[in-house]
């Protein structure tokens, strides 16, 4: 979580190998960037830079179309 006064480094700028994993086929990796409800976590919480947050948001939305990730998690759906 973001804490005031704590400068955070974008994980994708530290390790460029992670950039290839921003893909709707790697939906298990993208689960790190959504809440339990299925909402996309804002970049200021995860520390992802704006450049990669745009890509992540795009790929999460693709994965949602294919029912790999939920639009909104329904607790009754099992």
């Amino acid at each position: 979580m973001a804490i005031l006064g704590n400068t955070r480094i974008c994980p994708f700028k530290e390790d460029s190998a992670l950039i290839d994993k921003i893909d709707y086929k790697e939906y298990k990796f993208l689960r790190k960037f959504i809440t339990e409800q299925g909402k996309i976590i804002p970049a200021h919480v995860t520390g992802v830079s704006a450049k990669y947050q745009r890509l992540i948001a795009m790929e999460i939305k693709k994965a949602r179309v294919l029912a790999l990730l939920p639009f909104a998690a329904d607790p009754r759906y099992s």
Partner: protein
Amino acid sequence: MNYYETVYIIHPALQEGRLNDIVNKFHKKLEDVQGEVLYVTNWGKKKLAYPIDKQKYGTYILCQYSINGENIKNISQELELNPNILRYLITKIDESKILEGSNTLDIAINDSDENKTKSKESKESKDVENNDSSEQVLEEKNDTIPEETAQEDINNETDDESDSSNNEEVKEKPDDEESSQKETENDNDDENTDKKD
């Protein structure tokens, strides 16, 4: 010629034989419009994140091919009009993103047992990679200010006269241990989710 990638979800009630028919029909349509299939894989029967047409499960097929951009609308029409295909997604890809492997699905289905073991092995290796690469994300999340400051205070109280560099060295070690423990926990979580799938 451009390179495209399509993932489509086939109705779960279809058996392997009829599943093959649908895949072959799609490939025939691609060849009719001078397309070339480069890679096909069956992700298997998966649980959908939300029901589509009242179905909770679906068989995912990934297909990569090269085709002229004008003919994409024929392909999307073919997928749209087939009632056994629940959902599909066509995306344009780079040539570098094309995966290596067979461009026919028949072999994969005939040797399903061998492929299952292979896919499990590959999944495990992928998971290891995932965890390695996700370490940094987790480490960053674990490194919160209060822990460090608390440890600094302890160090200052015990070693008032020692150099600040020593304090830093002492400070780093416990963080590493904590992060490694959390990583192992995460490993277990990932394995559990794989089994569920």
